[in-house]
């Protein structure tokens, strides 16, 4: 029999727990998942298995959390009540919204993602910050390239070295990279939402 790693054991349990907690307010779900994740971090696979047994059945934990959630909060919009198309449209906008309507399309997608209950707060932050990080990285690269191009131009008016990409090349590459990243983030959001049904 193949031995399970901590990542396998913890991952399976957290996924089952995440699924069982669907329908609960985001902060309740995040609080429980974060707490359990922290409890399992750093344990051996065997210790994690014991701890998981002690933590209990995900369905039981979810039922307990539901019983502790005020009725008024339960009645608030929940993932169960969110229209099925909403997270799909949000993820698609994140994916290709920027192509249809540069910047605004992506921003609209991210706003929809933040209003959706299909994703945890952490997932929303990841989806929001990855493109920002890419843009910052591209900006930094653009500055470096611009400086390098200027430095390469000879006093006699020689053009920049053909070995160093020009600013236009960097912008084109950057846009392509950003599109690829956005498509990747969108697919990841779709997969995460689909796993929770």
């Amino acid at each position, binding site marked *: 029999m193949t031995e399970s790693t901590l990542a396998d054991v913890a991952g399976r349990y957290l996924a089952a727990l995440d699924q069982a907690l669907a329908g609960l307010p985001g902060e309740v779900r995040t609080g*429980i998942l974060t*707490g359990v994740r922290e409890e399992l971090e750093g344990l051996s696979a065997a210790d994690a298995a014991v701890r998981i047994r002690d933590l209990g059945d995900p369905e039981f934990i979810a039922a307990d959390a539901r019983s502790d959630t005020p009725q008024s909060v339960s009645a608030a919009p929940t993932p169960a009540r969110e229209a099925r198309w909403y997270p799909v449209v949000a993820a698609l906008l994140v994916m290709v919204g920027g192509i249809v309507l540069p910047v605004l399309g992506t921003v609209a997608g991210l706003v929809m993602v933040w209003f959706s209950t299909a994703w945890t707060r952490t997932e929303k932050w990841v989806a929001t910050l990855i493109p920002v990080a890419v843009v910052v990285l591209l900006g930094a690269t653009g500055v470096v390239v611009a400086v390098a191009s200027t430095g390469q131009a000879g006093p006699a008016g020689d053009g920049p070295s053909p070995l160093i990409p020009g600013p236009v090349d960097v912008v084109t590459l950057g846009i392509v990279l950003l599109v690829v990243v956005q498509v990747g983030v969108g697919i990841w959001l779709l997969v995460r939402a689909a796993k929770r049904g």
Partner: protein
Amino acid sequence: MTGVSTDVWTQLRKGVVEFCVLGLLAERPRYGWELADTLITNNLIASIGTLYPMLTRLRSQGLVSTYNEVSGAGPVRKYYELTPAGIAQLASFRAHWGPFSSTVYRIVGGDEHHD
């Protein structure tokens, strides 16, 4: 059945369990599972499904704070501890709980005619 309904006990537990957490943290800082284990053993909560949202609430209310600490040869753990506001909240609860529980016990408890 003539016993008190389960709902009453549930409500009673819900009313005091946050203060029990504050009381446990007043003894010493504890990590999540330590709190869960103690509270579950004492039938104050059924599972961590109640505890972690409660800890999130207590943190957002500024009554507890957290810090990370390496435990012996074990993993880095997030420990919960009382803030000054948490200490004050617990002191206020103790001031009310003592007389309250004494009153209830004087009225309904310690009936020598039973048991």
